[in-house]
């Protein structure tokens, strides 16, 4: 799905989290929102997911105005920073949550839910852990379960908030490839937030560098490396 961000601004009380920013994300792209903390990248992601609403500006999904759509109507697969798995549910029930939450008319039957959950567990390469609880999983496993849970609702896009933030360096590297593979397999427009420029440069098709609520540069990783647009970008990516 093509996502168009049109002059989106966000204020929290008297502080400005986002100055009007505009951005066009082509369908099927894997995009990194890169910047230090406080740059507004998470706010932008949450606005796309419908968890925050902009003070002004519009969001367009496939050229349709989506600014006023509720979080449920957005159908965005959202992976939270510390995963926010439901701690009192098994991995199976976590992944099945979105399917069970559908209105009765469009809810798949039990056998179909079983089939889909098992298929997603295969996709994240953790077919054995359906009966476990989140506290019994490693950090990397939790991240992949959170991804599977987000994919279960057949989302229109995938939004990931610091998906590798809570992991150690080795697992981080492995899961980067995992995210790339899942993105390529599903073809979903995917946007992830990170403060790690290596991660952004290595993984994304398109990198959006942000600072203090503004977009500093949008470009392919190689272009940003070769031609940083501002002094901030030059310093931040260490070019």
């Amino acid at each position: 799905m093509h996502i168009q961000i049109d002059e989106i601004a966000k204020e929290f009380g008297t502080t400005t989290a986002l100055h009007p920013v505009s951005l066009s994300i082509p369908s099927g792209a894997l995009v990194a929102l890169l910047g230090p903390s406080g740059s507004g990248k998470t706010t932008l992601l949450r606005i796309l997911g419908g968890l925050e609403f902009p003070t002004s500006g519009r969001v367009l999904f496939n050229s349709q105005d989506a600014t006023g759509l509720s979080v449920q109507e957005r159908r965005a697969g959202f992976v939270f920073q510390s995963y926010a798995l439901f701690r009192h549910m098994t991995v199976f029930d976590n992944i099945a949550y979105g399917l069970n939450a559908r209105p009765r008319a469009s809810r798949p039957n039990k056998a179909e839910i079983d089939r889909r959950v098992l298929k997603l567990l295969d996709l994240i390469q953790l077919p054995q852990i359906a009966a476990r609880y989140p506290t019994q999983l490693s950090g990397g496993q939790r991240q992949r379960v959170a991804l599977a849970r987000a994919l279960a609702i057949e989302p229109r896009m995938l939004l990931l908030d610091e998906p590798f933030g809570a992991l150690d360096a080795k697992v981080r590297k492995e899961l980067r490839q995992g995210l790339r593979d899942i993105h390529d397999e599903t073809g979903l427009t995917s946007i992830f937030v990170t403060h790690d420029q290596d991660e952004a440069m290595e993984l994304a098709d398109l990198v959006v560098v942000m600072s203090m609520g503004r977009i500093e540069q949008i470009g392919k990783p190689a272009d940003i490396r070769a031609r940083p647009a501002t002094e901030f970008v030059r310093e931040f990516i260490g070019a």
Partner: protein
Amino acid sequence: MSDATLPKMQARPAATAPRFRSATEESPAARGALIAIATGGLALLVGAPLAAVFAEALMQGWGAAVASLASRDAQSAIRLTLLITAIAVPLNAVFGIAAAWFITKFDFRGKAFLITLIDLPFSISPVVAGLCIVLLFGANSALGGWLVASGHPIVFAVPGIVLATVFVTFPFVARELIPVMIEQGRAEEEAALTLGATGWRVFRTVTLPNIRWALLYGTLLCTARAMGEFGAVAVVSGKIRGQTATMPITIEMFYNEYLSVAAFSMAALLTGFALLTLLLKTALELRHADALSATRRH
């Protein structure tokens, strides 16, 4: 430091090695003193009075104690206390959940003020709370006069006792829930929303299961306190024997009338109710230890 040096240092011959204490361990004398203070204090302040209540109640044997509890006034007091508790506790559970939800899941002006307001019944004397209810709803106020005239008196009747009990026990559930809900944050609720769940479904399937232990604990504390409330109820009830006298009020009446066995039998029964709630809590905690450690992190 290489890995090999550490075990070697610890493997000194036990006979000659001085015994090292870990940093958080106290000296034997300090430990002994702390244990003595804790057990001694507990025995003196909790154990002895508890034993005394039961001993006094059974002074003339089981027969006398049971007979005193079977009297008309005693029966009426027990029924009233159970009725008041059955009304006040569910009300406070609902209020408590609503207040904690409101405070922890939303940002708004005056939040600190609201939290202070919830704590007010803890700091205000129950007698003052009772007087406030009498002033508001008593026969001398416009509202109270009308209520009495229309045949629905609040003061010196059951509704007044319910109001007083609800007021006094208001903070228990909210106070238990607020820290738990703050610690759990909003991420799980937000995740459920992004997965398409409606607000009510999120509450039922995510929020409530995550707070159930704190809710249970708060409810049990609230129950124990609701059964035992004296001050506020003493003011609003009018202490009408057989009608508005709850168990604590009846205990006082019996005691003042030198009906020692009756007073202490009822005191023992009230204590028994309180112990039962604590027992129930412990049993549930033991039985669901796994789920408890998964949902609660303190």
